[in-house]
C-alpha cells in the first residue's frame, strides 16, 4: 500500500506544552534541524497514523510572527517552505494554552492567515478547569474554522484524536482567516503585496500576502532588508507611502493589535465561560513566597549555591571516575600495541585516549547543570529567577536570564554556554555566550595553584593571606574585563532592537521526570556529537604537533645512553654477586631480591595508607614508627631465612632502584628534548620575541601554545619540557622546585613573581579551551562567534599579561 506522506509545522507560544506534545506525537523519532544563519533550531519528527506518515517540524515557541531578527523570521520562512533542508509544510498544528486563551490566539490569528489546513491542540485544560474556566471546543472550532482537539500530552490523552483530525484536515484545502483590519489597511496590504510580488524574480521567491502585512506593519526586519536590497529607493518610497496611508495618523502596530484582539475578544466571549472569582491561584500562593523580598531572595541564593556547588564540587569525583575509566580502558588498549610501535603507542595514549577523555570529562558538569535547569524550567522557576536577578544584570545591558548561565560558567563555560538557550532575545544571548569564557572556570584553578604556591610569598596581609588574595584577584580579573566587554557589545553590534524584558511568568507545574530525562539525553548527546568531534580533532592535532618531526639523531643519542646505563647496571649486579660468592644467575640470590622488593613495596603502600588515614601529627608519627619497627623486624626475619644470600641481595636491590631511576631520568630527558625539537617547540622558539616582553621564554611560550586546546595542559607540558615527564600535577613539589630553579639563557631565574603573575593573568583571560569554542560554534550555529571570541580574548590576554609583567617588574616583583 502506498504510504501517504505529509509535513506539518507545529507552532505555539512558549510555555504551552508544545515540546511535550511534539514528543507525544513523534516518540523518539526526532532529529534536530539547524536553520542556516540563525541561532535557533527546530526538531523534526515523524508521527504515524494508519497508513500515513506525517513529518512534524517543531518550530521555536513565539508570541508573534513579527520578525526583527533572522531568528524570529524562521517561523515564517519554515511555514512557507523556504528553509533549505526542511520540507514545505502542507498543514499546521497550532497549540493553544486553554488557561491563557486570548494571548495564545494572537499568534493563531497570524498563522491562520497563511491559509494552510490547520488543527488546534488545546492544552492545559486541567489548569483552566482549576480556575473555573470552561471552553466550548465546538464553538471555538467553528470560529477558527479548524478542528479543536483537547490534549493532555503527559497522559497521552487526545493524541490519537489529534492525529485523526490532522489526517482529515490535510485532505481538504485550507482557507485563509480574514481579520477585519479596515478598508484602508487591507487595501494597503494588497498593494504592497503586489509591489513585492513584482520583486519575486530578484528575491528568488514569491512573497506571501501575510509577509506583505508584516512588512507594512513592522517596516523593518530581515524581510524588509531583503526587499530594500533588491527594490532600492523605489521600494522604500512605496512602503513609506502605503504605511502612511494605512496608519491614517494612528500606529500600525496598534491597528493590528486592536483588530486581532477585537476578533479574539468576540470569539472568547462565546466559547469560554469563566466563574473565575479572581481568587488567588496556586501559582499566586507559591509566588508570594518564591518572589518574596526576604524568602524569595534567600531561596534563590540557596538554590544558586546548590547549583554552583554541585557543578564545582560534586562533578569532581564523576570527572575523576571518567578519567580513570578512560585511562583503564586505554591501558587495556595500549597493552595490545607491540613495543616496537612507539608512534602508535603515543598516538593512542596522548592523542586518542586523551581526546576521548577530554570530551567525556565535561559530561558530568553538563548533565548536572542541565538537571537543575530542566527541573527549574519545567517547574516554571527559571523565569522567576530572571525576575529576581534582572535588576542586577540590567546595567550591563543583559537581563535576568543571563545570570544562571554566567554563574555556572565559574565552574565551566561549556554548560554555561549551553544554558543560554533560556535567553529569548538573540543579542542578549550572544552577549552572554561571549562573556561566559571570561568567568574563571575550574580548569584555571590548577594553573593558579601551581604558580601561586611556587612564586607568591606565603605571608599575611592584614587579616588575609597574600596567596589567598592573589587567587581572589585572579577570579575577579575575568569579571573585570567582562563588564566593559558587555557594555561595548550591547551598545554596539549586539544592541537589542527592543528592550528584551517583557517576560511571561508561566504557571508553576510539577516537573515531569521524563521531560527532564529527555533534556539531559538531548543536551549530553548534542555535546558529544557536535562539540565532541571538534575537541577530539584538536587533541589529535596537538598530539601530532608535539610528537613530530621527531629527530632520529636525538632518539639514537638518548637510546644509546639508556642502553649504556642498563649495561652498567647489569655489570654492577654481576660484580656484587661475585663479591658475595654467588653466580650471577643464582636462584637463591634472585629469590632473596624478589622477597626484599615485595616486602619494601608492601611497606611503602602501608605507609602511604597510614599517612592518608591519620590526620593528627603526633598520632601519625607514632603509627609510622610502629610501621618502621615492623618493617625492620620483617627484614631481620628475611635475613634469617635467606642466610648468606640476603646481604648481596639487599645491595643489588638498592642498585636496581638507582638503575631504574637513572633510566627513567634519561627517558624524561629524551622526551623533553624531543618536545623541544617538535613543531610545538619550534613554534615556541618562533614566538619567543613576542612573549619576551611578557617575561616568558620559548619554553613558557610553547607550554602556552600547547594549552590552547585545554588550559590545564600547561602543567603537563611544563613537566615534560623541564624533564620531569608528563604526569606532573599542580600539587607536585618537584615541579614547583624545578620552576623556582629554572634559569633563562643568561643564567637569571626564569620565573619571577612578575612572570608568574603575567602567566596567571594570561590564563585568566585567554580563550584556551577548544571545547568552549566548539560549543560556541554549535550554539551560535556559526564560526563567526568562536573566532571573534578567540581573537578578542587572546589579544586581551596578551595585552593584560604584558602590562602585568611590565608594571610588576618595574615595582621590583
Amino acid at each position, binding site marked *: 500500500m502506498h504510504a501517504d506522506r505529509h509535513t506539518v509545522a507545529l507552532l505555539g507560544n512558549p510555555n504551552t506544552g508544545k515540546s511535550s506534545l511534539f514528543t507525544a506525537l513523534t516518540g523518539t523519532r526526532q532529529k534536530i534541524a539547524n536553520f542556516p544563519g540563525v541561532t535557533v533550531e527546530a526538531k523534526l519528527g515523524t508521527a504515524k497514523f494508519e497508513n500515513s506518515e506525517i513529518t512534524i517540524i517543531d518550530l521555536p515557541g513565539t*508570541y*508573534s510572527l*513579527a520578525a*526583527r531578527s533572522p531568528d524570529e523570521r524562521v517561523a515564517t520562512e519554515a511555514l512557507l517552505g523556504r528553509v533549505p533542508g526542511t520540507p514545505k509544510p502542507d498543514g499546521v498544528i497550532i497549540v493553544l494554552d486553554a*488557561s*491563557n*486563551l*486570548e*494571548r495564545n490566539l*494572537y499568534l493563531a490569528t497570524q498563522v491562520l492567515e497563511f491559509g494552510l489546513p490547520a488543527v488546534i491542540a488545546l492544552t492545559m485544560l486541567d489548569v483552566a478547569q482549576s480556575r473555573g474556566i470552561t471552553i466550548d471546543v465546538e464553538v471555538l472550532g467553528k470560529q477558527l474554522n479548524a478542528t479543536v482537539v483537547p490534549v493532555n500530552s503527559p497522559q497521552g490523552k487526545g493524541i490519537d484524536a489529534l492525529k485523526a483530525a490532522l489526517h482529515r484536515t490535510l485532505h481538504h484545502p485550507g482557507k485563509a482567516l480574514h481579520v477585519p483590519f479596515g478598508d484602508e489597511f487591507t487595501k494597503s496590504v494588497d498593494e504592497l503585496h503586489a509591489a513585492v510580488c513584482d520583486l519575486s524574480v530578484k528575491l528568488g521567491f514569491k512573497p506571501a500576502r501575510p509577509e506583505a502585512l508584516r512588512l507594512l*506593519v*513592522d*517596516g*523593518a526586519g530581515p524581510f524588509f532588508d531583503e526587499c530594500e536590497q533588491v527594490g532600492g529607493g523605489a521600494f522604500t518610497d512605496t512602503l513609506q507611502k502605503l504605511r502612511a496611508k494605512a496608519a491614517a495618523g494612528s*500606529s500600525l*502596530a*496598534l491597528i*493590528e*493589535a*486592536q483588530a486581532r*484582539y477585537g476578533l479574539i475578544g468576540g470569539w472568547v466571549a462565546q466559547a469560554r465561560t469563566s466563574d*473565575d472569582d479572581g481568587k488567588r491561584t496556586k*501559582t*499566586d500562593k507559591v*509566588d508570594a513566597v518564591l*518572589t*518574596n*523580598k*526576604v524568602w*524569595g*531572595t534567600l531561596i534563590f541564593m540557596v538554590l544558586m549555591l546548590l547549583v554552583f556547588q554541585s557543578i564545582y564540587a560534586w562533578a569532581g569525583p564523576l570527572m575523576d571516575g571518567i578519567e580513570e575509566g578512560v585511562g583503564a580502558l586505554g591501558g587495556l588498549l595500549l597493552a595490545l600495541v607491540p613495543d616496537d610501535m612507539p608512534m602508535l603507542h603515543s598516538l593512542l595514549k596522548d592523542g586518542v585516549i586523551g581526546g576521548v577523555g577530554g570530551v567525556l570529562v565535561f559530561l558530568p558538569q553538563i548533565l548536572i547543570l542541565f538537571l537543575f535547569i530542566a527541573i527549574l524550567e519545567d517547574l516554571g522557576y527559571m*523565569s522567576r529567577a530572571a*525576575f*529576581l536577578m*534582572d*535588576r*542586577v544584570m*540590567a546595567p550591563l545591558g543583559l537581563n*535576568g536570564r543571563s545570570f544562571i548561565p554566567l554563574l555556572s560558567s565559574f565552574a565551566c563555560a561549556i554548560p554555561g554556554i549551553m544554558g543560554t538557550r533560556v535567553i529569548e532575545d538573540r543579542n542578549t544571548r550572544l552577549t552572554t555566550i561571549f562573556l561566559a569564557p571570561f568567568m574563571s572556570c575550574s580548569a584555571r584553578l590548577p594553573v593558579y595553584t601551581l604558580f601561586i604556591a611556587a612564586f607568591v610569598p606565603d605571608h599575611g596581609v592584614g587579616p588575609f593571606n597574600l596567596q589567598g588574595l592573589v587567587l581572589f584577584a585572579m577570579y575577579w580579573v575575568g569579571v573585570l574585563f567582562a563588564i566593559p566587554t558587555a557594555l561595548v557589545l550591547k551598545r554596539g553590534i549586539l544592541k537589542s*532592537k*527592543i*528592550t528584551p*524584558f*517583557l*517576560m*511571561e*511568568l*508561566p504557571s508553576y507545574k510539577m516537573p515531569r521526570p521524563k521531560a527532564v530525562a529527555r533534556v539531559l539525553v538531548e543536551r549530553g548527546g548534542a555535546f558529544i556529537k557536535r562539540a565532541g568531534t571538534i575537541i577530539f580533532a584538536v587533541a589529535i592535532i596537538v598530539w601530532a604537533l608535539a610528537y613530530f618531526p621527531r629527530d632520529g639523531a636525538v632518539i639514537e643519542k638518548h637510546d644509546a645512553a639508556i642502553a649504556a646505563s642498563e649495561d652498567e647496571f647489569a655489570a654492577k649486579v654481576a660484580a656484587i654477586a661475585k663479591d658475595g660468592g654467588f653466580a650471577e644467575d643464582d636462584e637463591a640470590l634472585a629469590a632473596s631480591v624478589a622477597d626484599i622488593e615485595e616486602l619494601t613495596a608492601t611497606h611503602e603502600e602501608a605507609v602511604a595508607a597510614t599517612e592518608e588515614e591519620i590526620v593528627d601529627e603526633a598520632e601519625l608519627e607514632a603509627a609510622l614508627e610502629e610501621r618502621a619497627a615492623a618493617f625492620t623486624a620483617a627484614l631481620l626475619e628475611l635475613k634469617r631465612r635467606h642466610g648468606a644470600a640476603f646481604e648481596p641481595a639487599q645491595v643489588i636491590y638498592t642498585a636496581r632502584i638507582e638503575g631504574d631511576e637513572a633510566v627513567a631520568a634519561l627517558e624524561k630527558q629524551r622526551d623533553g628534548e624531543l618536545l623541544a625539537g617538535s613543531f610545538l617547540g619550534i613554534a615556541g622558539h618562533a614566538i619567543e620575541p613576542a612573549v619576551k616582553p611578557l617575561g616568558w621564554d620559548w619554553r613558557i611560550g610553547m607550554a602556552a601554545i600547547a594549552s590552547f586546546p585545554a588550559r590545564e595542559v600547561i602543567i603537563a607540558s611544563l613537566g615534560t619540557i623541564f624533564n620531569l615527564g608528563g604526569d606532573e600535577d599542580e600539587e607536585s613539589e618537584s615541579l614547583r622546585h624545578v620552576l623556582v630553579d629554572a634559569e633563562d639563557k643568561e643564567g637569571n631565574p626564569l620565573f619571577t613573581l612578575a612572570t608568574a603573575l603575567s602567566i596567571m593573568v594570561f590564563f585568566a583571560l585567554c580563550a584556551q579551551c577548544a571545547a568552549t569554542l566548539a560549543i560556541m560554534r554549535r550554539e551560535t550555529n556559526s564560526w563567526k562567534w568562536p573566532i571573534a571570541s578567540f581573537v578578542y580574548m587572546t589579544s586581551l590576554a596578551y595585552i593584560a599579561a604584558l602590562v602585568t609583567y611590565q608594571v610588576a617588574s618595574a615595582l621590583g616583583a
Partner: protein
Amino acid sequence: MTTLADLPVGASARVITVTAQAALEQRILEMGVLPGVQLKVVRQAPLGDPIEIKVMGYSLSLRRSEAACIEVEVQA
C-alpha cells in the same frame, strides 16, 4: 499623566495608551497590553525592578522603564 510605573503594588488600572519606540510598542501590544485592557500590579522584584502585572489572565513581568510607556487610569 499616570503610567503603569507609578502604580503601587495591588493597584488595578485600565490602559489608556501605549507610547514607546516602535518595536517596544509593538511587543507590548502583542502581549495583550492595549488600550481598554484591565490590569493589576501584583508585585515588584526584591530590588524594586522589574514589576509583575496580571493582564488577560496571565502574569507578565516588565521593567519600570517599560511600564513608564504605558499610560493608565487607576480603577477603584
